[in-house]
């Protein structure tokens, strides 16, 4: 089956990101396809490379980057939600006149159209939120 995943909460604050990750990994292990993983609302905070979580627990951001690399996943962060919450890539930082960018490896910033497209192109869209 071809899945799309929507993650609506940030790392650690809610379970959503963990659940989405576990679901994605299980689905991929079973040979399913993941068309796109879209991050909305505080979910965009899964895509910052500046987290320094305690070493004795899971590193949620890195886990996403690694999974994306292993399976060539498309991790998309919503540009509007990202702007609200201060998540930028190099282009956005330049465009908006900010002195830094913070996007993590494996993530890209794009529009909400990518979420709608994911809903259309996949067979099932699964939402993880609070």
């Amino acid at each position: 089956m071809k899945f799309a995943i929507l993650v609506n909460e940030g790392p650690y604050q809610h379970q959503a990101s963990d659940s989405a990750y576990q679901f994605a990994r299980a689905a991929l292990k079973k040979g399913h396809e993941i068309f796109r993983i879209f991050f909305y609302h505080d979910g965009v905070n899964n895509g910052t490379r500046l987290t320094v979580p305690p070493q004795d627990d899971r590193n949620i951001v890195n886990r996403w980057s690694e999974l994306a690399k292993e399976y060539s996943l498309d991790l998309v962060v919503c540009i509007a939600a990202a702007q609200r919450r201060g998540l930028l890539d190099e282009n956005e930082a330049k465009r908006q006149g900010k002195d830094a960018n913070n996007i993590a490896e494996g993530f890209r910033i794009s529009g909400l159209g990518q979420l709608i497209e994911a809903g259309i192109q996949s067979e099932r869209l699964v939402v993880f939120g609070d």
Partner: protein
Amino acid sequence: MPEEEGVIKKFLYLNRKAPYGSIYALESLEVVLIGAAFEQDVSLAFIDDGVYQLKKNQQTSVSSGIGVKDFSKTYRALEGYDVEKLYVDKKSMEERGLIEDDLLVPVEIFDEAQMAELMEQQDVILSF
């Protein structure tokens, strides 16, 4: 735009949270607006505190209330985007002492069974 020409899916946007106090209502509406360009078969459902999103007369200015932007008129603009199927949950309305006349757009009031049937019919359900 969809790669496959003419694919039309049933999209349901499920709203369960109050309009202010968290960002879910506003940001989910932004998805609806962007999504409208994809010409899918769109419905909006309002359950629990989500029914408050459609309440008339929202007072949000600094002087009268909370100092946030009142985005309620956007629900009236949905018609212009061909998003006209709005359903509210009967029990949620009653629990909150709301009647159809309290709402700022035309809606269809569904009971639990009808809401379940609506969800059953959907291809994509986005809940926020």
